[in-house]
């Protein structure tokens, strides 16, 4: 029985522990060859194997009447009626973006697009969720500017609208920015395809770009280690995105599916060919023989291990019947896209890789996909320690209510995102019924006459205060956003951005947050259909806030009636809907005041919140309201100001006794306005009109002044 030789530490450099390496040797009955070691080290990385999160993820409810494909496929898919399915997923590209923000963010979009068309869906929308350090930091401004430009470059160039997103600035993200991208796609249900390879004798065809040394030791290794001293060495592996190649690959893949030429389809992402081929083989319970010499290369002299783990972008892998290969190649040629047979499906259950007539890898598929150990977390609630330093106060302790409101509107987290979303094309494909800033969720018309709504949310600061309640709030807030346009949630996707899970307090944050998401999903009846986990977002000196990002998709019957957030008509009554009992814990105003992060967050009154959502949704769909807006960060004061600014009209409101205008309870309260008759039975708190926002006895500020504060917030920095 071979043992681990202590002198050979290459497995450690590749991120495998001694124990893991011993396990590999034990399973194989020999030491792995170089190519095998490279393949195994990537497949056994956190990024591919989910070894610290798999057990926890099992808590998420994944079933529901609309689910067509759940977690385990490249993207989840829900049924939207009339034979159509909507595929969606959110994914992180945090580490590559910290190293090279433009290309990192661009290839993040490229990667999530491929996950969507890998299941046969045409991408119809992108959203982005970004976290940076405070914009007073030069590095954060650089990261913001470059990441946004990268997303714009890729998304705009492939002709997929970027319809929404979110950005938060917190010192906790100074060392580790977060760049998450979400994509939605639309497919006739009959065109949906899984990645499982099938049919021994069938041909494995590689589509798209040439293979170079991109990302060798890139995403997977990067995603499994804290960014630290070794940064510089990791840098040469930056992947460059080519949206033009992606656009052709997308059109060509969909055409191949439309012509029923493919048996299975899979994108190449982290760990390149190795991961794509292993997943295809594992899914179909088959083996694969791959011939490295046939993989078209961008530069000479790539070693077989490099070919097998290269993360060159804009590539896909498919399985084709031998007699259809010529048709596949011809269809690809029309789109100026390479299609190269590189191997075949076998019944061996093994992944065999040849190079120069030599067998360089011969592994059971199971060791690549199933045998990586799963680690139990050791969660421990940190008691009596504060994990994050209090932010510096930027608001004077004696600031008036009007000053506080203006400071909130102009703060980096609440200010207008116009400077960012103006860099994205939100309208290409002619489906976008609600653009950024028009409503709380983006609305996309469906060919069925109905519409989809989509939103993405996740406030890390609140999760840091109370992981379970904060993560649940993100789900509720997403649902609230869909509610405001009149949509009923169909499913959600999530990206779990956390620190090092081997640290007990991070493990606690992770398990608590997942539990919070699971509880909220059950309460709202929304299944989780997919997601992504990004751990080790932790520079030596700094850990991020635990940041689960929730992307939710819903359906509404009549796009023409989709809700808007702006106050529309002088004289309209304004009502407050929902069990809104906010506090200042974890709020934006607490941050500006320099308060330390601390819970507890307001208790979610589940049944009452659900009732409120039903009420608002029904009224929006009936066309009874002129506006609907959820009350989020900045409390009811900021929510009212946002409605005023968007509509260019004022309002006069008497807040319920004792309601703090800036306290928060995300996802629990709604503002709606409309004619008095429409609001019968609701708690009327004021009226639309005039050119100022007046909170009786609290503040009066001109709408123009509110708008200037909100518009100028980011402009100061960009």
């Amino acid at each position, binding site marked *: 029985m071979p043992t681990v030789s202590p002198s050979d530490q290459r497995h450690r450099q590749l991120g495998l522990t001694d124990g893991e390496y011993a396990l590999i040797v034990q399973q194989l009955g020999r030491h792995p060859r170089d190519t095998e070691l490279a393949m195994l080290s990537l497949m056994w990385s956190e990024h591919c194997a989910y070894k610290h999160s798999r057990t926890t993820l099992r808590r998420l409810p994944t079933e529901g009447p609309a689910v067509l494909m759940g977690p385990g496929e490249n993207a989840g898919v829900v049924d939207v009626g009339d034979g159509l399915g909507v595929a969606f997923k959110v994914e992180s590209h945090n580490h590559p973006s910290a*190293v*090279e923000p433009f*290309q990192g963010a661009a290839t993040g979009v490229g990667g999530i697009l491929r996950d969507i068309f890998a299941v046969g869906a045409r991408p119809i929308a992108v959203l982005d969720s970004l976290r940076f350090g405070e914009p007073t930091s030069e590095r954060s401004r650089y990261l913001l500017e470059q990441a946004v430009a990268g997303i714009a470059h890729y998304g705009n160039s492939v002709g997929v609208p970027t319809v929404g997103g979110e950005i938060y600035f917190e010192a906790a993200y100074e060392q580790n920015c977060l760049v998450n991208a979400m994509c939605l796609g639309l497919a006739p249900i009959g065109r949906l395809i899984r990645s499982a390879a099938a049919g021994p004798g069938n041909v494995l065809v590689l589509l798209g*770009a040439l293979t*170079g*040394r*991109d990302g060798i030791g890139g995403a997977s290794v990067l995603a499994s280690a804290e960014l630290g001293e070794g940064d510089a060495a990791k*840098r*040469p592996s*930056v*992947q*460059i995105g*080519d949206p*033009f*190649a992606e656009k052709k690959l997308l059109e060509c893949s969909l055409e191949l599916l439309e012509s029923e030429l493919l048996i299975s389809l899979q994108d190449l992402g982290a760990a390149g060919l190795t991961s794509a081929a292993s997943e295809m083989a594992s899914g179909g319970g088959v083996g694969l023989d791959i011939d490295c010499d046939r993989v078209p290369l*961008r*530069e000479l002299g790539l070693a077989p291990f490099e070919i097998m783990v290269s993360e*060159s*972008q804009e590539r896909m892998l498919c399985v084709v019947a031998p007699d259809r290969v010529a048709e596949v190649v011809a269809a690809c040629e029309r789109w*100026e896209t390479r299609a190269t047979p590189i191997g075949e499906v076998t019944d061996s259950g093994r992944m065999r890789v040849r190079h120069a007539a030599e067998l360089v890898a011969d592994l059971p598929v199971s060791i690549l996909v199933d045998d990586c150990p799963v680690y139990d977390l050791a969660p421990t609630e940190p008691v009596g320690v504060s994990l994050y330093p209090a932010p510096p106060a930027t608001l004077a302790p004696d600031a008036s209510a009007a000053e506080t409101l203006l400071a909130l509107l102009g703060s980096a987290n609440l200010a207008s995102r116009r400077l960012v979303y103006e860099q994205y094309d939100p309208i290409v494909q002619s489906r976008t019924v609600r653009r950024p800033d028009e409503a709380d969720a983006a609305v996309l018309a469906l060919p069925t006459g109905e519409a989809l709504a989509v939103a993405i949310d996740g406030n890390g600061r609140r999760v840091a205060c109370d992981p379970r309640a904060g993560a649940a709030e993100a789900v509720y807030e997403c649902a609230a956003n869909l509610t405001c346009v009149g949509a009923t949630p169909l499913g959600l996707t999530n990206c779990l951005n956390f620190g090092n899970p081997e640290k007990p307090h991070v493990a606690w944050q992770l398990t608590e947050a997942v539990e919070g998401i699971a509880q909220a999903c059950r309460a709202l009846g929304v299944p989780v259909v997919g997601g992504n986990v990004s751990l080790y977002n932790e520079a030596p000196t700094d850990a991020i806030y635990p940041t689960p990002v929730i992307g939710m998709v819903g359906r509404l019957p009549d796009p023409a009636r989709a809700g808007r957030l702006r106050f529309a008509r002088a004289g309209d009554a304004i009502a407050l809907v929902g069990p809104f009992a906010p506090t200042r814990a974890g709020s934006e105003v607490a941050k500006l005041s320099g308060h330390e992060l601390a819970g507890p967050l307001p208790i979610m009154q589940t049944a009452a919140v659900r009732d409120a959502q039903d009420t608002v949704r029904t009224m929006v769909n009936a066309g009874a309201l002129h506006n609907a807006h959820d009350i989020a960060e900045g409390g009811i004061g900021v929510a009212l100001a946002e409605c005023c600014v968007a509509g260019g009209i004022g309002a006069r409101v008497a807040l319920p006794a004792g309601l703090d205008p800036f306290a928060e309870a995300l996802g629990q309260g709604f503002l709606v306005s409309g004619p008095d008759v429409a609001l019968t039975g609701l708690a009327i708190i004021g009226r639309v009109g005039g050119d100022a926002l007046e909170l009786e006895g609290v503040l009066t500020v001109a709408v123009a002044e509110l708008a200037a504060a909100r518009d100028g917030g980011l402009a100061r920095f960009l």
Partner: protein
Amino acid sequence: MRARVLVKPKAGILDPQGQAVQRALPALGFTGVTDVHVGRMIELDVQDPARLPEICERLLTNPLIEDYEIVSADPPAPTTASA
């Protein structure tokens, strides 16, 4: 000193622009052109040329993905074939 900084993608780094130009040329009837790369040129007047490398590395180029060269653009100017 008037200087030029010539920036191009590092060897082995994907150069989609270079590829696009190379593919376009035969269609225009230009054959025999290979190994095309597209980069940037920055021309500037600099009082202290000794600081140029630092300027290049901190601002003008992205050292992760680009190589650069500094060439003088002072007279005698290179032969101009400009239209």
